[in-house]
């Protein structure tokens, strides 16, 4: 009898030794004469359990984790190949692990379940059903479904996706583009990477539907160069999708046309800003453009262009397949559907949590995350990437939704939640926010280019105890200037973490550090 064993192949699992685990399992099976079918699946997103090994049994898939290569012989001795549950790493049925069972996985329903490159696995779990539906509709019909879902841009700006699409749709016929922003630069985020490494056909399907909706025949995925594995897996998926007729000049025999290509970024955070991304795709320095004109009217190469985040496009196949209303049934207020929250930093149980909008940060960090990895008390959490505010405990009971967060100066952004324990020096974090901006500013506008450099200097003076009150006032004014005067969110939001430290953790900034002032 063949035993099917799953060992994930996403970046995180590999970073913790999944390849060596797989090799040991193959070796053990060979030694025992066990007929093994080893599947390299995607990750379930339960990262604290990676490498998470699963064994298929009659009752479902049984999980073991985190499995280190040296654990394999003992696991096999304890009956791994029969689904034995006596070993300390045995976790029972994967689907019943509470962290996973309590989620509402609409977009991420397949990750970790399937072999990412298997078209059979994908279509076996409703893959390409959304595309088939879309092929029966005209552009406006697709748009109406997306409109009904209430989907808003998951990259951070939360702009209604259907309105963007409608604008491109309503432009005169001609060359139009779909551009997927896969420049996932925010620290604490990995959901785009998971889509591309663990369920790549979903993104291909979402982009194709977008192309059909607005009348675009060419799509580009702008992928950051820090994700070499995502590039490799996705390009292989593209080749297979072309070969199977899901892309190209005659999609599934419909006569409709859509081409898709991955373009690699080159290590510039600013290229996650949509206009800078477009300049980079055109082969220029990734400089931010002034808006208007909107990319939807004059985007890539001056043509009408939809620029969407990976997660926005990845939500589309579900919406077309199940209907916009089915998606809108999740969520609260104007934030409809689910949000992919990524628990990161100093967290005991880090990973992907997909839930309807409305859960509190505390529930996420404690209920799901289990508190800090270090076991020390949580002190601060940065939500929404390096441009997001540091939130103190008084703000952890707010429900996560776009309007609710905006009301107290928070940013949901791309859903990254980076946790810090009480050993963190918030003064150092404030300084880093400015330093990051000096490294990554495109340089086009002065508040961002010069302001960030001055910001680092003035924070250094404050921390050294030099003219403290005057410099604190100067820092506040500098933050205001950057917020009000910058061309894009880079300079405009870099002050958010700094201001939050000034407001909520001022002692960390002004506490004298040991030694002489520098």
């Amino acid at each position, binding site marked *: 009898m063949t035993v099917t064993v799953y060992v994930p192949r996403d*970046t*995180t699992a*590999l*970073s*913790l030794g999944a390849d060596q685990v797989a090799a040991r399992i193959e070796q053990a099976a060979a030694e025992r004469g066990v007929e093994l079918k080893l599947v390299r699946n995607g990750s379930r997103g339960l*990262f*604290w359990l*990676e490498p998470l090994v699963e064994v298929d049994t009659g009752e479902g898939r049984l999980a073991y984790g985190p499995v280190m290569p040296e654990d394999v012989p003992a696991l096999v001795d304890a009956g791994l190949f029969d689904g034995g549950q006596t070993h300390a790493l045995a976790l029972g049925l994967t689907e019943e692990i509470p962290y996973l069972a309590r989620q509402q996985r609409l977009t991420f329903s397949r990750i970790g379940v399937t072999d990412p490159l298997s078209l059979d696995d994908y279509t076996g779990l409703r893959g390409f059903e959304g595309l088939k539906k879309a092929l029966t509709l005209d552009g406006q019909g697709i748009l109406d479904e997306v409109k009904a879902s209430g989907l808003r841009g998951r990259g951070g700006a939360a702009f209604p996706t259907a309105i963007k699409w409608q604008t491109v749709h309503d432009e005169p016929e001609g060359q139009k583009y779909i551009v997927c922003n896969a420049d*996932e*630069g*925010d*620290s*604490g*985020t*990995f959901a*785009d*990477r998971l889509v591309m490494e663990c369920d790549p056909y979903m993104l291909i399907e979402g982009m194709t539907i977008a192309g059909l909706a607005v009348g675009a025949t060419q799509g580009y995925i702008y992928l950051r*160069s*820090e*994700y*070499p*594995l995502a590039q490799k897996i996705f390009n292989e998926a593209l080749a297979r999708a072309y070969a199977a007729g899901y892309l190209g000049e005659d999609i599934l025999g419909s006569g409709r046309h859509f081409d898709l290509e991955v*373009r*690699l*970024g*080159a*290590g*510039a*955070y600013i290229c996650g800003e949509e206009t800078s991304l477009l300049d*980079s*795709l*055109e*082969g*220029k*320095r*990734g400089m931010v453009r002034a808006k208007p004109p909107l990319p939807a009217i004059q985007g890539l*190469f001056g043509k009408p262009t939809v620029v969407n985040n990976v997660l926005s496009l990845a939500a589309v196949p579900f919406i077309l397949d199940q209907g916009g209303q089915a998606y809108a049934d999740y969520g609260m207020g104007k934030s409809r559907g689910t949000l992919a929250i*990524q*628990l*990161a*930093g*100093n*967290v005991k149980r880090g*990973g992907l949590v997909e839930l309807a909008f409305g859960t509190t940060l505390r529930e996420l960090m404690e209920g799901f995350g289990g508190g800090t*990895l270090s076991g020390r008390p949580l002190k601060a959490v*940065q939500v929404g990437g*390096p441009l997001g505010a540091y939130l103190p405990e008084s703000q952890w009971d707010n429900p996560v939704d776009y309007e609710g967060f905006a009301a107290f100066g928070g940013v949901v952004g791309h859903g*990254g939640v*980076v*946790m*810090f*324990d009480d050993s*963190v020096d918030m003064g*150092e*974090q404030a300084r*880093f926010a400015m330093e*990051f901006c000096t*490294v*990554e500013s*495109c340089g086009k506008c002065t508040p961002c280019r010069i302001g960030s450099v001055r910001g680092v200097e003035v924070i250094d003076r404050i921390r050294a105890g030099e003219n403290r009150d005057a410099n604190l006032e100067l820092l506040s004014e500098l933050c205001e200037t950057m917020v009000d005067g910058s061309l894009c969110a880079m300079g405009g939001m870099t002050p958010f973490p700094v201001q939050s430290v000034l407001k909520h953790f001022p002692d960390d900034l002004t506490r004298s550090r040991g030694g002489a002032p520098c």
Partner: protein
Amino acid sequence: MYKHNNPSAEGLSTPPPDDQPQSQPEQIQQAVDSLKDQPGAMLPILHAIQDRFGYIPDDAVPIIAESLRHTRAEVHGIISFYHHFRTHPAGRRVIQVCRAEACQAVGARALEAHAKASLGVDFHQTSADNEFTLEPVYCLGNCACGPSIRVGDDVHGRVTPARFDALVEDLTTSVVSLRGGMKP
């Protein structure tokens, strides 16, 4: 622990390996010609050249400028804008240490200091024996299992200073066994 001894190795000149192509400009021209007709060809061309040579040689700038009808200054401006592109050869391996917030929360600052001390270099420098170039990186997308580093295309998670040393040791040993001896 593996220790590198010369702290100022930037710009170290090394003899080209035996398989160094005879005519670099011809190879560059070939790479440019194969890509220049696609829309927005600049980044694909720069990636292709760096993938081939490990950096963007000075010779490439006039060739790209001519082929894409840019000025040399424009090409230089594009290369220098992106952190990924380098204009000098790196060591045999590039080690990127993540400096971003999620890794900071679990000890990235200590790891960064350890990496610099252990290799005897600062960021953007190459160790004296030309084995390792150390670079900062702002997020590898492994944020639940930091601190993270990347060596070549491999990402490593939960990298403690001890694990960093073990990795460097492994990489050094494999180089030695491949070559059958340590370089002087």
